[in-house]
């Protein structure tokens, strides 16, 4: 546990440059800028099999290799620190406690693609973390790790820390770029992908905080050392943010492929007294929910997907028998309705409608046929929306109905002979 990015995470004052350096910090940058050519670095990341830790799990090295070698427009590295997925709080701890590890990752990424300008787009609510990052960046710049002519290699890199204004959608990479450029945060049409035409029209890589934090280790220890952890297709470790009524909730870095049961029962110490496991969402709020039959699934990208859910951002949300699944799903849907950017029709109208239907079921005003209506709305939303937010809104609803249909039906049966739907709508 805690083998790579969380290694020594609780070292006192690790966020100070001197302490970080004393723990072997910035060795990777020194090594890379001196000895490793950008192409070789991309090759190393490719060999390591590192996959994006933000949710989609796209191979990082592959993403970097899409950036054209020669470009008329400047290239950019953008760090997605807009960690807004409900149930996920890994990047927060990484940035809070070990900001230099991220800065090192950024410098390496910039070196790999030949970028001289980088941005950290940090969630607006993380004001104190933005300050920590700013302090770290100033310290690094004072020591010549950022700015002009890093380590005398002739390589320049500017870093801008930009605070978002509180929109979940800005965690979507192209919406993030729009927001960074000063527009409404709304996803862009793809293709062109950001790696070809991103920020200000220049080739841009957008990586998650955790993803970039892995890069110094890969450079220092080599791809093989990284591959020692995890599975063949999902190598390395991953931070799981466990929340809910378990004895020891929190962030745990574990090799990919660790079974869910081990995470919940051994590492988190099992359920709190009086609680019985009812449901688990394995990868942040945007993925299908599981019931307790799925405890033995190994937590890696492939195995989770094979069992009908997604590893996502690794936010493991545990729900006990004291939780109403209808209420929990309504809560999630309300979140997506609030956070839908409004660009595309299905997401804008669909989340609103689903919230209304779930709301009336929850209030005991559900009607026969409402579950079919909800499933139908999900299928009209899923795969039809502009970006993944639509899918994210639909998947929890669908899976929750399929897994816990009895509870929904019971709610609707209670409502039979109840009030008319018109009054259900107007609160």
């Amino acid at each position, binding site marked *: 546990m805690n083998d790579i990015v969380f290694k020594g995470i609780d070292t006192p004052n690790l966020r100070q440059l001197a302490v970080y350096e004393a723990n072997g910090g910035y060795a990777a940058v020194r090594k890379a800028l001196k000895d490793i050519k950008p192409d070789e670095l991309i090759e190393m990341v490719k060999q390591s099999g590192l996959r994006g830790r933000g949710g989609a799990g796209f191979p990082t090295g592959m993403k970097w290799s899409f950036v054209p070698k020669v470009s008329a427009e400047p290239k950019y590295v953008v760090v997605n620190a807009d960690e807004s997925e409900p149930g996920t709080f890994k990047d927060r701890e990484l940035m809070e406690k070990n900001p230099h590890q991220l800065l090192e990752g950024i410098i390496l990424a910039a070196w790999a693609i030949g970028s001289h300008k980088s941005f950290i787009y940090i969630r607006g609510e993380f004001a104190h973390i933005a300050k920590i990052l700013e302090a770290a960046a100033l310290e690094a710049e004072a020591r010549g790790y950022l700015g002009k002519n890093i380590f005398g290699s002739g390589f320049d890199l500017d870093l801008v820390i930009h605070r978002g204004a509180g929109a979940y959608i800005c965690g979507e990479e192209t919406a993030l770029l729009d927001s960074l450029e000063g527009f409404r945060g709304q996803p862009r*049409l793809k293709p062109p992908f950001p790696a070809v035409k991103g920020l200000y029209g220049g080739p841009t890589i957008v990586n998650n905080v955790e993803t970039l934090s892995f890069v110094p280790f890969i450079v220092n220890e080599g791809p093989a050392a990284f591959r020692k952890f995890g599975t063949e297709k999902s190598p390395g470790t991953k931070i799981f943010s466990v929340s809910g009524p378990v004895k020891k909730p929190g962030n745990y870095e574990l090799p990919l492929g660790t079974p869910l049961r081990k995470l919940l029962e051994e590492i988190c110490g099992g359920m709190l007294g009086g609680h019985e496991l009812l449901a688990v969402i394995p990868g942040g709020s945007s993925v299908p929910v599981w019931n307790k039959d799925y405890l033995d699934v190994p937590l890696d990208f492939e195995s989770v997907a094979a069992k009908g859910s997604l590893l996502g951002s690794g936010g493991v949300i545990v729900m006990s028998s004291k939780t109403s699944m209808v209420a929990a799903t309504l809560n999630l849907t309300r979140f997506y309705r609030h956070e839908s*950017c*409004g660009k595309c*029709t299905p997401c804008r109208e669909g989340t609103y*409608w689903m919230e209304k239907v779930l709301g009336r079921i929850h209030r005991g005003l559900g009607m026969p046929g409402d579950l079919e209506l909800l499933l139908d709305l999900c299928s009209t939303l899923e795969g039809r929306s*502009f970006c993944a937010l639509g899918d994210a809104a639909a998947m929890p609803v669908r899976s929750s109905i399929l897994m816990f249909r009895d509870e929904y039906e019971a709610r609707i049966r209670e409502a039979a002979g109840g009030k008319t*739907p018109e009054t259900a709508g107007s609160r």
Partner: protein
Amino acid sequence: MTEPKMVTCTIDGRTVTAPEGTLLTDAAKMLGIQIPIFCSHHRLKPLGACRICLIEKEKTGKPVIACAEMVAEGAVFHTQSEMALKARKGIMEYLLVNHPLDCPICDEGGECDLQDTSYEHGIGSSRFVEMKRSFDIVDLGPIVVLDRNRCIVCARCVRYCNDIMGDSALTIEERGFHSQINTRDGGELECQQCGNCIEVCPVGALTSRPYRFKARPWDLKQTETVCNFCSNGCTFHLGRREGTLVRARAKKSHGVNRDFLCARGRYGYEFPTSPERLHFPRIRQGGSLQRAEWSDALGQAVRAIQAARSAGKAVTALASARLSNEDLYLLQRLVREVAASPHLDHRLEQRAPLPGPLLKSLAAFPALPVSAIATLGSALVFGEDVNEEQPLYGTSLLREVHYRRMPVVVAHSRRVRLMQEAASGLPYRPGSELAAARGLLKSLAAHQGAAGPAEEVRKMTAGWSWEALASGSGLTEAQFEKAAATLYSGGSRAIYFGSQALRAAEAPDLVRALIDMALVSGASLVPLWDRSNSQGALDMGVLPDLLPGYEAAPAPGWNTAEILRRSASGEVGVLILAGADPLAHFPDRKLAENALRKADFVLSLDLFETDASEMAHVSLPLRSYAESDGSVTNSERRVQALRSAANPVGESEAGWRIFERLATGLGSAWNYADLLALQEEIRARVPLYKVLGRRMGPAATSWALPGASLPGAQPVGEGKAPAAAAAGTLRVESGNSIFHHGMLSQHNKVQLKLLPGPTLFLAAEDAARLRLAEGDLALLEGPGGKVEARVKIGGPSGPGVGFYPDHFAGAEANRLFGPESPFADIKISTLSAAVHS
């Protein structure tokens, strides 16, 4: 240009081959397959937001959006498969979640995309039973009404306003389900009021205030015709209900403008059915004009022409360039053949009209359609505020600047809209057009190789000193160099020039310099004339020195200035004013007044009472473009059909019929059975106009001068530098505002709402210097006299240069400006300050 790669794909089992990069919606259209769209628009970049165009792409597993999907080799698409239909049906149900069912009272009802698509894909009833959201209906100024309840947030209006018009007046507010359209500051729209947001709105969220509840689409009689204001020649539909024209609307994807119209085109439909129109012929009796019979009025005119001929006095004619080709052709035949006089012209505003040979040189350049701007490498716009005067060209250029950063050079005395966004600007001093043109020509010639005209031009320009050019124009050598480099940075090039260049005191030299620029840089040369049929008037030979088809006249006649001068000295027997009002448009108003007073007989043909028609001996009511059939030729030399959309007012008559009756009265054996017979004759006598009457309209090709080759390098004379503005004055220029055109639009109520009367536009710093505030009533004193005008800050003015639009009877620019130059130093004093609450 390299040929685009062609790819073949299958849609609904039929194969289609299209250039790489073609959007699937367009490819489907080639096959006649209609895919519904809301947010997608042919002038805008794909957005992919509304999702109504979802179709199935094989091997994808989920539907794709046809508006952003491009054709790919071997790809197979289904628009009518179960997956596609189900997806679209779902989207349709979502779209209707919050859309009110108020089609019966919605102005869009009957021509609404959402309504149509709902018929095709809707499920008839909604499963959404909760309350719909609701907003109040708001007026966004005098033109646009916003009903957010109906909005489907396709953002077409926002994008059109921003990307094409360059106004950014609209925006989307809030997010998610609360997303709604609003103006930038929540107040009224601050824009060109073009109303294109209304046009592009696929639902009835944006509707037109002037047209509000006037008619339903099905009780309009709609006629496709051509706008009569500027020379862009936009096609539109005039809608008539019960004898009144109630709206003009661009026809979707049709005409040179496709669905674009500017403010004056869209709201300039009122004057043809205005109650102020002249209804009857009038004859001067006892000092005033009295209603008369046609036969008496024409008889008087015929006798006057006979009298002039027997007295050996000249018969002269001035024509409006808004008349149709047929009118103009018969007018010149009447004057030349029947009255045996070479004295006619249509150019009233130009101080130095271009001589015939120069006009022929311009005609030798191949025509360039507006649509070519989309593929143009770079462009120079010289002496023309395209966005105010030629809006179709203006917005087409602006679109390319926005979407692909097309290198554009703009040379103008004011910092006009396009210059603000152009890669390079040449803001020369007012009146120094020629110096600026010479400077740019020198830079352009220096860039080119030794062959051909470039060498000649370089030799000519070598002697010009940069100091003189710089001090003359107020520009630097570096600015000229940058402009030249910008123009050379694109592959194919075009040079546009317009009214400021044509009205300059040194217009012929300026045009020679522009011809040289085009020759040196290999660019197309496009004159943007003033009026809807200026090009036709040239082609029809309503000129003192050119016959129809650019044949040199055997004995050149008098031009406008000469006609008026001779008339003032008593040499003119008959002066025919065919829709022309020299009092309003000729730079020297006093001379024009004298000319009309001293002419033995003045025959006026006009739509309204004008200063000139009231001085005439006989005044005849002319039909407007909306009541006439015929043809007009736009700046891209496309001959387009005018079709009558309204019933003729009173006893008004078409121009060509009046000329025919005059000619027969004078003993000619003219006899045109109908318009087609006349067009037949024009086709036979003017080889340029082979297309006339057959395949006219947007589909017709532009004519080309047969056997013409590009002219050789032209010698460019030296101009004199304008003096600096006198202390305590403001240098002011005149021209057309985007809200009006000429003198006709003052009869349109909507246009008067947009610009109510004489107005002086000036920059904020000039206003501060002269202690003027927005809305003040000011007295303007210039070399020509005094007028009163309201002060407006901004608009088409520039720092140090004011702008006085010339549209209002009683306050014409020639009452203020002197005859010498198209600008003047104006003394401004406040008459009454605006009341600010």
